[in-house]
């Protein structure tokens, strides 16, 4: 029961880990390369979710300075780092996609298994 309570309390972490596993599974098992790229993005997003939820405490406010009242701010550091992470993920995605378009021009397929088959026949 205690474990269950722990899981319910930390549902952000649980969802992040589930998404990480789904993303990694899709990335490693699907042979379509565009699918791999999408799955890579899901995997990255899950890690970002985990990171940002570390910086969030229940009921905390966005870290923007406002006049007057004392406000309970969320930790701004994870957010700032994750921005960089998202940009990095996007650049990897863009590079991977341009590779896929080029590979398609040579092999006429986006499927990694088919590419391996074509290469093994040569």
């Amino acid at each position: 029961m205690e474990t269950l309570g722990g899981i319910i309390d930390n549902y952000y972490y649980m969802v992040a880990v589930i998404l990480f596993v789904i993303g990694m599974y899709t990335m490693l098992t699907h042979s379509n390369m565009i699918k791999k790229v999408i799955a890579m993005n899901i995997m990255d997003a899950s890690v970002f979710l985990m990171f940002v939820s570390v910086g969030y405490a229940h009921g905390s406010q966005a870290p923007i300075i406002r006049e007057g009242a004392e406000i309970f701010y969320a930790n701004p550091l994870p957010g700032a780092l994750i921005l960089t992470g998202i940009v990095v993920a996007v650049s990897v995605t863009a590079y991977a996609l341009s590779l896929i378009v080029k590979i398609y021009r040579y092999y006429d397929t986006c499927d990694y298994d088919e590419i391996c088959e074509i290469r093994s026949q040569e």
Partner: protein
Amino acid sequence: MGVSEHFPALIVVIFFITAFISPLLYRWGRKFSAALVIVTIAAALGMTVSLLVTVQQAGTVFYHMGGWPPPWGIEFKADPLRLFMLLVVISVSLWIFIFALRDLQHELKKRVIGWYYTLYSILVGSMAGIVLTNDLFNLFVLMEICAISACAIISIKEDRECLEASFKYLILSAMGTGCFLLGVVMLYMATGYLNYSFLHLELAEAFNYYPRNIFTAAALFIVAFGTKAALFPLHVWLPDAHASAPSPSSAMLSGVVIKIYAFALFLMFYEVFPRTLLEAIPLNEIILWLAALGTLFGSIFAMLQSDLKKMLAFSSIGQIAYIFMGIGLNHESALVGGFYHIMVHAVTKAMLFMAAGVIIYSTGVRDIKKLAGIGRVLPITMIAFTIGSASMVGIPGTGGLISKWFLAISALEIGRPVFVIVILASSLLNAIYYMPIVINAFMQQEDFKKDIKPVPRVMLACLVIGMIFIVISGFYTTPVVTLLEQALALYF
């Protein structure tokens, strides 16, 4: 003081500035484009040497980006070990770049050569950053830059093997980075710091409260760096990527890039995680046994290859495992061996790939069996190949022996003679696949039949420099070993 104070940051930054100037320069002043990169790398080399002198006199130097002290700001750290690594990285990349100038014109289309310079500077800059940084998130960003630019210098030669290999590399390296970032999150969760020094202090206490977080982080780090450095069962991307790339890229990737990640794993184990963690679970043992398997299987796979560059790539898997063995043995002189091997193998493997590049440039032959009698038409190249092979096998008089010697001695000292046997067996296996090539090249009676193009002098000069270095590193070991012992004494 003056500008020398800023060397830790400038070493990294000048590469990025060069990287963004060179496409502009390539458009308008093509003549200066390559010279700019050479000047940049040479300047970085000079700064590294001067920094090393400073550090040996005055102790470790810290540099705070933007004047913000840690744990808020990004910190760069220059201690003797990092500077040794930086020296290896930068000098080897300068050497490879000079070789690349001639080789690229034959392997790449003219309009992408300018971009190759950009990518090369970004790659060297990001590696320098990985070595110097003292902050986990900065490490993540630089690792990703390094991975993308490493993939890009493979795929810049737009043929089908390169594209496919670099896609495979990109996906597996993205998986590695994902694991790494998850590990970083675990550590941040437990401590709230990202700076290595702060983490090291804080983790010793946090280990009592959140042991599982920290175990998970350690496991994820092993997977992440193992994937990127091609530790044995995670090596699948390496052979294709390193074999299909243009020869200078192969030399760079096999010679330097994979070692950077081994070094990063070393930093995680000795600068981030507390000693209690390494004593609590046998992480070192895991790495040690994977490395032992890697040395053997890398060599066995290499034996089965018929393509010259592919054989060299598989041999890298065996050789990187020695470095991991140094980390896994957890003993000072084993680490000296490991780091000595980083230096020796960087030079040796880069030189072997250069020799392969010269052979391909001059004759177009990649198949090992067709190399019979080539020693008579390309003597300098094949002598370089011979010396490189000798160093790989660990024949006395070459640098390869020294690192294996240190590893074996420390394995005996801590009472693990099994690993001495592993080292001996893998040396024997290395000999089995390197020596036939050498023997065939020189001893075969039949003449080499293909036409040969004359080899540019610059390329041969690069090979000669490599040969000289390997021989010197086999005899005159004292300065480097003293430096390493001094540097590693800080960790024990």
